[in-house]
């Protein structure tokens, strides 16, 4: 495998005295999609927080294009090219749809993804551009959250619980945008509870259990039963 765009090596992280992650290793190939699975509390969101610097981590525990980035502050990550689609969307409630997108566009990098292109990808948002983000349906909020990551023109997007709380038909709509996103050269780590769906999409798979990697490798190497066993720690 060529140099991964994002690597995590021996990552330990936690909240105060509580250690949530123990020696995590993972590699995200350039242009690839890595599926991250695990039960609630396995440490998936904590891993994203640690990658982004929202939790303390060692300088060399996270590398981007081969360079250590563990010493950088969270606000530097977007300009570096790492964006987050957070669990529960977490849109800025006092900002309109368009303002949510503009904020990330202003802080991020220049490139092919603009507010207009996000509206082309998610036409439902165009007519709601001046609406408060809180006035949108769950699916539309997820579209804004994805659009907010895209307009920063990232190299990597961390999707946390992309389908959580959404109706299946809406999840299909959201995933329908994935080829366009990956086709623009973006690499992604996707946290998804639907193991079957992530098996179909991801090039590589990592399963966490109680803060430890219990399964890691190319998706094709694992059967559904193996993933399920790892998922539940059986």
């Amino acid at each position, binding site marked *: 495998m060529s140099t991964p765009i994002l690597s995590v090596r021996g990552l330990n992280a936690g909240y105060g005295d509580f250690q949530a992650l123990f020696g995590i290793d993972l590699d995200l190939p350039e242009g690839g999609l890595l599926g991250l699975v695990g039960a609630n509390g396995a440490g998936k969101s904590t891993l994203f927080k640690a990658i*982004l610097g*929202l939790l303390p981590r060692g300088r060399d525990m996270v590398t981007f294009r081969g360079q250590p980035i563990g010493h950088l*502050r*969270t*606000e530097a*990550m*977007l*300009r570096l090219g790492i*964006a*987050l689609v*957070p669990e529960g969307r*977490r849109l*800025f*409630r*006092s*900002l309109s749809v368009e*303002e949510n997108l*503009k*904020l*990330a566009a*202003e*802080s*991020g990098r220049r490139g092919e993804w603009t507010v207009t292109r996000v509206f082309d990808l998610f036409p439902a948002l165009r007519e709601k551009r001046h609406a408060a983000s809180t006035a949108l349906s769950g699916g539309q909020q997820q579209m804004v959250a994805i659009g*907010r990551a895209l307009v*920063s023109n990232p190299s990597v997007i961390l999707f946390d619980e992309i389908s959580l709380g959404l109706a299946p038909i809406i999840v299909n709509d959201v995933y329908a945008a994935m080829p366009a996103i990956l086709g623009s050269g973006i690499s992604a780590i996707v946290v998804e509870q639907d193991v079957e769906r992530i098996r179909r999409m991801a090039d590589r798979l990592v399963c966490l259990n109680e803060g430890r990697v219990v399964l890691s490798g190319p998706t094709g190497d694992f059967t559904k039963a193996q993933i399920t066993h790892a998922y539940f720690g059986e």
Partner: protein
Amino acid sequence: MAYVDAITQGILLGGLYALFAAGLSLIFGVMRLVNIAHGDFIVLGAYIALVTVQTTGLHPFLSLIVVVPLMAGLGYAIQRWLLNRTLGPNLLPPILVTFGLAVVIENSLLMLFSTDNRRLAVGAIETASLSLGPISVGWLPVSTFLVAVALIAGLELLFYRTAMGRAFRATSDDSEIARAMGVNTRHVHSIAMAISFSVIAIAGVLLAARSNFDPFSGPARLIFGFEAVIIGGLGSLWGTLAGGIVLGVAQALGAQISPQMQFLAGHLVFFLILAVRPRGLFPRMD
């Protein structure tokens, strides 16, 4: 007619209270920080203006050229290197630190300037008045009111029409995600405090032009500003103007009944509004 006059004077006094409140509201809106030293910083601004006028001979209003940037820089520095370290889920540490700052400011001013009352002489505008039919209003209170309206309009534009305003609101909504979206929240907090201190500087000069002040005048200004913020509704800048006007009118009408009633009437109206509308008249945040 006396009551019409009192209401008019109260409305104009509300402009000064809105200036006391605007900086307080801005800071609470952006970072949920209650600046207990707010009133003392207003008085500090008045003293800096006094020293500027005495040393340069500038007109008190022109001293704002010096006082505003100086206070803005002080606000940025205090936030960046002191208060940012205290921000977190617990609201108590910044309150305690600003309480400590209030004590330091009051005692430093006492040491430097004694307890003597001071005032900025602003010339003919102090006594100039404008006739509005049967009542007359002073140009200085009218000017103060207009400055308050202009400042609040400017802050509204900044908050709702600029990239910096988006960063302010995003930081207020969700500081963690704002950071993940590339917003340097420590810098944003510091800029917000610098803007708050600029408003404080203007309020301090206008306070000093309208009334006597001494090193211990700050806490009363904090209470008036705080009451105007609560009456107007948390997070609402125009609400602070409404809150200031309600407070000013209540005090003016109270004084009409009895001079001893002036401040008590303001506090009573504050408690009444707190009881009936706990979130204030025009709340914008929880």
